[in-house]
């Protein structure tokens, strides 16, 4: 149990509970994620999926339960702990600092420094140009504050941030919600690429079609509880809809 087995999941959230006041937002939920896998988290608004995932990213404290990374129990008390474990999160609210430029946002929290210990803005901008050139070649607005960027551009910056820091575990909270069709396609290709590189990705989404297209497995939540986890290839859209709406687990669920 303690030794990291070869087939140990990259992440296991075991029996997690979070309550706000008297309300159990997450109630005894267990989900896991393997390297090179995309696991979708589905459910209505308020089903608890964002709360659950914020436990992993360090934004919320859990009230009960354990977190295992590569089979080893870890303690995540704040976003810094999560980052040190290689967990990067791309938030629904597109968490960029609006008043600083793209390069500064890319490196926020882990700035490149000169030999004098000062910010190396030129090096950060150069690196930002390199990464963004690969990700979104049309992106040219490196010097402008993030608030002047479009939704897609902001999302590219957020994703580039995660890539830049060699994340092992990526959490994406509705990554395509604010994007146009072309940008959505770009993100989809990106997710496939990250999968190939062996990252594990938790994908939170409302759109069950994008989940069916991008994910390997889907965990469905309702009223803070886990309805079940299914292999996406083995179920139909209707099965998943049934899980989301009725909380009914299909017969052949994994």
């Amino acid at each position, binding site marked *: 149990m303690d030794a990291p087995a070869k087939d140990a999941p990259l992440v296991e959230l075991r029996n997690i509970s979070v309550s706000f006041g008297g309300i159990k937002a997450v109630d005894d939920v267990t989900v896991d994620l393997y390297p090179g896998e995309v696991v979708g988290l589905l459910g209505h608004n308020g089903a608890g999926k964002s709360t659950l995932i914020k436990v992993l990213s360090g934004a919320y404290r859990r009230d009960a339960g354990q977190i295992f990374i590569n089979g080893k129990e870890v303690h995540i008390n704040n976003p810094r702990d999560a980052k040190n474990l290689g967990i990067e*999160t791309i938030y629904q*609210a597109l968490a960029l*600092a609006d008043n*600083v430029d793209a390069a500064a946002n890319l490196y926020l*929290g882990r700035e490149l420094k000169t030999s004098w*210990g000062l910010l190396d803005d030129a090096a950060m901008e150069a690196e930002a140009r390199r990464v963004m050139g690969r990700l979104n070649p049309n992106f040219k607005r490196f010097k402008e504050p993030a608030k002047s960027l479009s939704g897609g551009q902001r999302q590219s910056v957020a994703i580039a941030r995660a890539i830049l820091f060699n994340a092992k575990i990526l959490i994406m909270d509705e990554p395509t919600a604010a994007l146009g069709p072309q940008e959505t396609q770009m993100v989809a290709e990106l997710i496939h690429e990250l999968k190939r590189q062996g990252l594990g990705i938790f994908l939170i989404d409302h759109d069950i079609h994008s989940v069916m297209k991008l994910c390997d497995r889907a965990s469905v939540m309702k009223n803070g509880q886990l309805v079940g986890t299914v292999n996406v290839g083995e179920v139909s859209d209707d099965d998943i809809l049934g899980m989301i709406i009725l909380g009914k687990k299909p017969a052949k669920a994994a």
Partner: protein
Amino acid sequence: MATEGETKPEPARREGLFRTFLNATELDIRILGMVGALLVIWCGFDIYSGIGREGEGTGLLGGFFLTPRNLWTLLVQTTPIAVMTTGMVLVIVMRQIDLSVGSMLSMLAVTGAVVQVFILGPSLGVGHPVIWVAGVVTCLVAGTLVGIFNGVLTAYLQIPAFIVTLGGLIAYSGIAFLLASGVTIAPMDKTFDVFGGGIPESWIGPFWSWMLGAAACALIIYALYNGRQKRRKFKFPLRPMWAEVTLGAIGAVAVLGTTWVVNSYPWPFNLIKQYAEANNVTIPDGVENTDGNAICMSAGDVVRCTDGLIYYTGYAVPVLIALVVGAAMTFLSSRTKFGRYIFAIGGNPEAAELAGINTKWVTVKVFALMGFLVGLSSIIASARLDAATNALGQSNELYVIAAAVIGGTSLAGGVGTVYGAILGALTMQSIQSGMQLLNLPAAFQNIVVGTVLVIAVFVDQLYRRRVK
């Protein structure tokens, strides 16, 4: 220049010369506007103060404002507010506020004075070098500790900074009153007074002023050269050469012009006389001229004259302190991780926290820095007065915040510059001392300063809306 025009993909190339100039030099139009407003205020006061007294004023435009004496005094008077406002900018950028700086200044000045006058003075003997060092250290350390206290209450106990420092505003002035027992504590240590700029020992004289001016010019040129090398190394668009030269010229003219002004301010008559007598300097014979600033012997008496013994002040120590603080704080806010985090927190506190920044610790550090700067200001203010009272910093919090806001700091957070705030402090002090020059009552000065504050913010918002 092949790279020219790449700086910004402009929709049309038929923009005015001014726009081209701004784009090429990358100067901030709002700062240019502030400098313009400041010059208008200065010229306005000079012209207005000269009306009806033609031929009397020695100012640039015939008045009494643009004289070396007035400008020198203006610089020295601005320093306590200017030093504090550089910290207030960072506090406000981080979406916090510090209302306690005025009371804190009084409290720290009184504490430093108690240490010098009541504790160390009697035991060590007046003039002992430990006294001024202890006074300085007390003010700086106590200021930092009070700042940390404000910061911890705000960041870790999550009491809004407005409330924490409003409480401080009231409580610290009470502590200041108790420590001072309601009386003026004086005199301070003579070496300590060097920080105030009120005595000849705190004027560095023309030679060192020119040396410093030359060093500053060299630094400007080096910074421009270094920036260009860096842009070239990473293949970023370069500024056109004429823009670099213009920037260097503007910087050099500003530095050397200021140096020239402070080097044109002669010591007061009595001080020259005292100094000459104390140091056995021969006072030359000459013809009396009551308009002159030099001294000479005429019929056995020391009198004013145009040709004779004269000393010029050069930069005063507090002004140098403010300049160093301004440079250091600009550097801190733009070149260090700490500064970057302050701006990121102001722009989006949640994003900053999620990016792994320890926002609470940064908050404490910013308040600690604010406290340190208040300590520095309390040294300058009490040294200048050669005394400390429990009312020394009264209302200073309002002027410090107003200076930051006039200088373009947004109370919504995330936006502000140190040099803008210093310009704001200079603008406010200019208005005040200009009106003092015109003998307008203090109540009237308050009305005008308040109005200027509101108008400045309104104009700034108009500008921002247009840019959007």
